[in-house]
């Protein structure tokens, strides 16, 4: 049931790019990478070679059953990369997704895994939303577009979300890409747990002689908490705390002077 749902989420993908998405595990939990859903679906991925790469860059072959893989930790914590590669004639496709797994401390920086060349054309999160952080609507996500180790200026990247938004962005002269995550959740409820995470997918293409390269990056994003968190109210409460502090100081002075 969950699997069909995710297939349906991206079935509008015009280019039918190969893309990873999580298999929702239980009702009420969004696609929170680190805990839920260690099963992933590879859409449009027939014939692709699948690997899981550890924070220490060790690679393990994995296999899919009906496009679905179940990944197990490789004995260490931190982000791992799910990589699908398919080369048919002159068409070179890849799909990459980062998955947090628990285990012994890897003592590795995720920047090593993110920066490591996993496919010729790659959308590298720079940085990825780190632990205690997530991708949120109405915030900017940053990436670098790389082709064979070089950053690519002016690369066109299409963003699609499972909430139905579709936009195109272009990388700057340094190959940096800023993607404003859209505020496209309907029926927002108060509280992070009350809202399901949505998925966003980035795809880009590059021609190199007779070869064509296509890559996708996908991740979950959440409703921005500012829907139920107020800074204005907070300022008023801080001011209240300050008044209380003044009152406590004044009263203790009075008592001492008496």
């Amino acid at each position, binding site marked *: 049931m969950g699997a069909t749902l995710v297939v349906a989420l991206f079935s509008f993908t015009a280019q039918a790019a190969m893309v990873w998405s999580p298999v929702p595990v239980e009702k009420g939990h969004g696609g929170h990478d680190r*805990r839920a859903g260690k099963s992933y679906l590879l859409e449009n991925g027939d014939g692709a070679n699948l690997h899981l790469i550890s*924070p220490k860059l060790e690679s393990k072959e994995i296999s899919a059953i009906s496009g679905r893989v179940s990944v197990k930790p490789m004995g260490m914590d*931190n982000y791992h990369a799910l990589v699908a590669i398919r080369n048919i004639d002159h068409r070179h496709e890849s799909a990459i997704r980062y998955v947090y797994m*628990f285990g*012994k*401390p*890897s*003592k*590795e*920086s*995720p*920047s090593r895994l993110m920066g490591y060349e996993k496919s010729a054309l790659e959308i590298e999160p720079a*940085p*990825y939303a*780190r*632990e*205690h*952080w997530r991708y949120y609507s109405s915030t900017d996500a940053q990436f670098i577009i790389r082709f064979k180790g070089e950053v690519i200026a002016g690369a066109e990247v299409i963003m699609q979300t499972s909430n139905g938004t579709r936009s195109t962005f272009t990388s700057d002269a340094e190959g940096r890409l800023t993607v404003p995550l859209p505020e496209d959740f309907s029926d927002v409820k*108060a*509280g*992070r*747990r*009350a809202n399901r995470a949505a998925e966003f997918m980035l795809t880009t293409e590059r021609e190199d002689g007779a070869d064509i390269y296509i890559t996708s990056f996908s991740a979950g994003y959440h409703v921005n*908490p*500012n829907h*139920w*968190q*107020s*800074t204005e*109210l*907070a*300022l008023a*409460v*801080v*001011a*209240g*705390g*300050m*008044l*209380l*502090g*003044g009152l*406590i*100081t004044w009263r*203790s*002075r009075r008592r001492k*002077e008496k």
Partner: protein
Amino acid sequence: MPVWKNLSVIRKVVQLLAFLFLVYGSVFVGFYSADKLSGAFPVLACAYDAKTADYCVLIPLQHQFGHRLGPALSAGMFSFSLILPILTTLGTFLILFVVLNKAFCGWLCPLGFFQEVLGMIGQKLRLKRTESLDPELLDRIRPAKWLMLGLLVVLFPLASGLGFVGSELGDPFCKICPSRILTSLAAGQLNQLYIDTSSLGYMILSILADTLFGLILVLSLTMRQPFCRICPLLAMHALFRKVGLVKLVKNYTSRCDKCGLCAKACPMDIREIHTSKEKDILFPDCTLCGRCVEFCPDKGVMALKYVVIPIKVSDPQYFKERNRAQKKWEGKQKPSRRVKKAS
């Protein structure tokens, strides 16, 4: 007295550098936690500050109790691998802690430094200072740090993981932690200054957090280190203080009985350093700031030592110069309201 000889000035410089490093350090050491120093740092450097170089030991502890141990226990599972992350976190904390002991508080904590800076601003504004807290009040406040550690860092997260209390209490100390608000604001983020209206529990916790932050802003102007007195890390440090390599020692003499300048100088109001006849006077509330050594007028009676090597030993000449420097810095204090009325 030349500033480079003044221990308090040296400490302020170290605190400022530590503040810059811990609050903005990811600019130098990279964005991800594994790039950082430890992920279990012994001061309130905050994981919610997007630029932090490292974060405090309390957040992994709360998460390990609340997200891993609690749920596993409630599912009837228990294995050594479940407590391994807690042991790893405590081990990392201890390796660092042994090196500097409680001096982490007095020399490196961003929140400790912030409170001291506010105190200095209060002095410059000529606000009348609450020099020492009443002993009875102090005795009532002192156990609070243990409650903060026991309840907010261990029990509530565990109970939340076991399903006895709501998920709001999964990391309750972080929810009310003033360093979260301070360091994220310092890093230019407004996202930690909020009232959360998504549930009653979150609302109460966010009101508590913001009120506490407001209280600290004002109380620190006239009172020394108001938050430190109830900080759960002060309690956690106290548990392990005997294994730390930095020591605070006293060679009691009968002259101490009539003096008591050390206790007066102590920002944590530890009166026991004056009355104690023990050699080891590193009490649970100490932050190893070294002021007591600076303000002891008797040669060799008080000392900060690294294992056995003296770092700072009390000395009458230093005391005289340090006192003069202090008076110069404080300037003339505004007479209190009552004194004004009487004159």
